C-alpha cells in the first residue's frame, strides 16, 4: 500500500527493515574490549583512500572518494546565476547531502529520510572559507554529495569534505587552497583516527577537523561528546598531521586527472 502523499512512481519498500547480523561481525565485536589495541590498523592510521576526480561527465566538476566501506560521490554544478534572490555581492555555496537508501545498516527511505542537513552544515562550514565567493557575485555554486555507503558518520563528514574540495578544484572554481579533512575520537585514553561505525560505538567524544594544509589554517573544527581540553588538542594535532597526507593524495589525484 502506497502512502498518500508519497511518490507513487517509486516502489515504497517495506515500512521497517532490520539489518542482517553476520556471525563473523558479531564475533569480531565481542572479542574487542576497551583498552585493547585497535583491530586491523594502528590507532593513528586512516583507511586507505581512493580518490578519482571527474567521474560524472555532465557536472562541471566531480569527485568520487572511497575509504574501505565509506563511498561518496560529489558533483559540482555552477557557478550559475542565482534566481529569485536579491543582489548579493558574494556568491552562494549550496551544499546538499543525500544518502542512498542502502547506505546505512538501517534503510534510509527516499525523500523522507534521505537528506541530512547536519552533515551538509558541517561540510558547508569546512568548504566556505576556502572558496573565493567574493569573485562570484550574484551566483550560486551547487555541491551535491551522494553517500553511497557510510561507515562512521564523522568519517563521512571528513570524506565528503575532501571529495567536495577535490570536485571544486576539478570544476575550476577558485579557492584559497585545497581543503583536507580528518576525523578523530577518544577511545579510552587513546586518540584514534577515522573511526568506522562499529568503532564509534565505544567512543566518548569525536572531533572532525578540516584545514587548508597549504596555508596552515583550519576552516572548521567540529567536536561533540565529552573531551577534556587537552584531549581535544591531541585530536587536533593528530588530525592536522594526517590532513597533510590527505592533501598530498588530493593534489596527486588532481594532477593525474588533468
Amino acid at each position, binding site marked *: 500500500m502506497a502512502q498518500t502523499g508519497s511518490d507513487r512512481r517509486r516502489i515504497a519498500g517495506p515500512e521497517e527493515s532490520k539489518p542482517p547480523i553476520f556471525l563473523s561481525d558479531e564475533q569480531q565485536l565481542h572479542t574487542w574490549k576497551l583498552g585493547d589495541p585497535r583491530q586491523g590498523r594502528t590507532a593513528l592510521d586512516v583507511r586507505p583512500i581512493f580518490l578519482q576526480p571527474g567521474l560524472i561527465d555532465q557536472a562541471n566538476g566531480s569527485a568520487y572518494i572511497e575509504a574501505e566501506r565509506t563511498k561518496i560521490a560529489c558533483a559540482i554544478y555552477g557557478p550559475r546565476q542565482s534566481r529569485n534572490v536579491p543582489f548579493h555581492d558574494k556568491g552562494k555555496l549550496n551544499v546538499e547531502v543525500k544518502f542512498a537508501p542502502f547506505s546505512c545498516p538501517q534503510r534510509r527511505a527516499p525523500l523522507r529520510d534521505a537528506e541530512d542537513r547536519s552533515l551538509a*552544515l558541517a561540510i558547508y*562550514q569546512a568548504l566556505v572559507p576556502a572558496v573565493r565567493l567574493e569573485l562570484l557575485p550574484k551566483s550560486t555554486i551547487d555541491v551535491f554529495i551522494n553517500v553511497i555507503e557510510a561507515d562512521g558518520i564523522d568519517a563521512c563528514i571528513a570524506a565528503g569534505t575532501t571529495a567536495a574540495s577535490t570536485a571544486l578544484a576539478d570544476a575550476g572554481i577558485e579557492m584559497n587552497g585545497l581543503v583536507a579533512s580528518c576525523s578523530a575520537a577518544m577511545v579510552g585514553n587513546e586518540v584514534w583516527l577515522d573511526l568506522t561505525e562499529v568503532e564509534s560505538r565505544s567512543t566518548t567524544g569525536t572531533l572532525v577537523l578540516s584545514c587548508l594544509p597549504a596555508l596552515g589554517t583550519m576552516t572548521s573544527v567540529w567536536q561533540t561528546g565529552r*573531551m577534556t581540553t587537552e584531549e581535544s588538542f591531541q585530536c587536533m594535532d593528530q588530525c592536522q598531521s594526517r590532513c597533510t597526507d590527505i592533501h598530498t593524495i588530493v593534489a596527486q589525484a588532481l594532477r593525474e586527472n588533468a
Partner: protein
Amino acid sequence: MTQSSISLSKAEKSYIQAGLLCDPPHRTDGRPLKAYRQVELETGVAHLANGSARVSIGREGVNTGGGTEVVAATKLEVEDLDDGGIEGGRIICSVSCSPAAYPHLSSSALEDLQQDMSIVLHQILAHRTLHPTNLGIIRGKKSWLLHLDAIVLSDSGNAYDVMFMAARAALWDTKVPRTRSVEYRAPKGSKSAVESEGMDIDPTVSGFDTRQLSKATDFELPDYWDEGEILDGRERWPICVTLNLVPPVHYLDATLQEEAATHLRLLLAYSFPTSSTSTLQGVRLLGPGELSFEATKSLIRQGEKYALEVFTSLEAKLRDEDFRRYQKAQAKFSRTR
C-alpha cells in the same frame, strides 16, 4: 549556512570592526570586550511542561522589550520501545524562531535558521555522554522521550548562548514522574502482584487488575501530587560561550549589529560536572573565515575561563530559583493555612 539576520552597510560594518580593534576597544553600548549584558532567568514559566525556563539578556529594564529572549521547556512522553524508542529513553531537541524576532528573514530562511540551531542544540545535548539515567520506565518495553523545545522570542544578538542557558535551566528544572511497574500474575486466585523495578515498593491493589495482561508489564504513577524526581545528572548539562572573532581580538556577547559585522564565531560548549573539573562538550566554528591552529587552541583555553564564570553565576541563580519556588513557597503556604 546562516546569513546574518539583519543587513548592514559596509560603512557600518567597518565602523563596528574599527571600534573593536582600536585601543582601548569601543563597543556601541560601551561594554568591555569580555563583558556580558545583564542576564535575567526565571524557571517554571510553563506550568504544563515538566521543566521550563525563560532567559533574556540585555533587556533595558524590568518588563520591557529589547534584548534576546529564549523560552525553553521540556516535555516527557511515554514511548514504546517497538516503535522508535530506545532502551533508557532518548532526548530530542528542537528550536523554533519566532518570525517576530527575525522580521528581515523570509520564511524559508527562517526555517533554515531554526534547523541549524536545532542541529547544534541536539548534537550537543542529546549526546550519550550526557544522557540521564532515569529516563527508562520498564526495561525492554517503555521509556521516556524527552522533548526539549526552545523558542527564540526575540533576538538582539548572542542567541546561541542564551539558548543554551535556557536549555540548561529547563533541564535543571525538569522533574521525571515516579513510576511503578505493574505485573499481572494469573495463578493464585486472581490477585495481582505489583512488582517494582528499582522504584518504591507498595503492594496495594492497582487499578490495572481488571486488565488481563498476560505477562506484559505496564506502569502506573504512584501519586499525582508530587511532581516527581529530579532529572539525573543535572549538574552535567553544558553551557555555551560564543567567541566572536575579529582577529586579533575576540569579544563576547555580540549585539545583532556586531554579529552582522563579525564573520567568524567559535561556539564552545563546556560542562562542569564537579566544581574542579571541566570537559568540552562541543566545538563549532561558524562563518567564512580561517583560523590558525595556535589561535584556536588559545581561544579554547580562554573560552574555558569565560564558561566557568557564566556557569558559576548561572548555577547560583538556579539554586536561588529552586529555593524561591520550593522552600519559600512552602513557608508562605504553611503560614496562610
